[in-house]
């Protein structure tokens, strides 16, 4: 997770802003997956 976060930071994926009144923010979650068979081995935790 820290690694992914570091990549996202380095990439300047987003900036923190106040949400404009007429906009909606979508959610996100962490998904962990096996490097081998991604379709079958998927653990999701919110």
């Amino acid at each position, binding site marked *: *997770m820290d*690694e*992914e*976060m570091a*990549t*996202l930071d380095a*990439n*300047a*994926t*987003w*900036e*923190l*802003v*106040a*949400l*404009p009144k007429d*906009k*909606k*923010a*979508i*959610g*996100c*979650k*962490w*998904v*962990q*997956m*096996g*490097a*081998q068979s991604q379709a079958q*081995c998927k653990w999701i935790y*919110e």
Partner: protein
Amino acid sequence: MSKYKTRLVAKGYAQTYGIDYEETYSPITIMTTVRVIIAMAATKGWYLHQMDVKNAFLHGDLQEEVYMEQPLGYVDQTCPNLVCRLKKALYGLKQAPKAWSDKIGQYLITSGFQTSNANFSLYVKKADHGIIIIVIYVDDLIIIGDNDEEIFDLKKLLKQKFEMKDLEKLCYFLSVEVIQSPKGIWLLQKQYALNKLSEYGMIGCKPISIPLEQNVKLSADEGDLVEDTTMYKRIVGSLIYITIIRLDLSYAIGMVNQFMQTPQKPHLDAMRRILRYIKHIL
């Protein structure tokens, strides 16, 4: 199973068309193009190079205004009420595949490549001293060309720009094994076929040397439906994938493919026979 990747995934299903996403279509290579490229390399005696992009979708630029909540566990302590205004694409976003393919497409076009009219994920660059052809399958690139120096330079540029991994020799692409030798190029789907056979419980079956029974006529009303029609459809899908290499199976697979809607016992028998034949040819 030893390595796990963790990814931050945006809940793209919460996006609304016209507000935080517009166009989502992104082109993809068909297997025919890949086959043509491999055939070309074989006749010209060229070497097939492969490259792989790390975190491909994170490179795409977002045109739309997308807001996302701060990721769990990494919420900014000083201002937890702020949200993330996304600049780059994230996995899960509806436009992520398009954003990525646009990005790499633009980059290749600015470096002198042209897209093919027949396939938009095929890029060709003709220079004074050679030609380079690239096929892109999302984050996998196959590169061929007649000038090794040019390819080397291109790879270096791509590595700098997109954090790519150079796999050098193409040996595995979309579960097709590729063996390159001075005598020619071999394509194999042995591992794929084996995996599928064990997945469908046919790994211990008795091999048979002919894929279809002689003079067999299958029709749509032969009796009771197969219990698990979804499984039937899945197996047909896998069999069609095997025809990439085993073109001789096309007819037999076409037969069982016709009864996808209402698979019945004789159709299942025909399918089992194809699976037994596949074991025979492995």
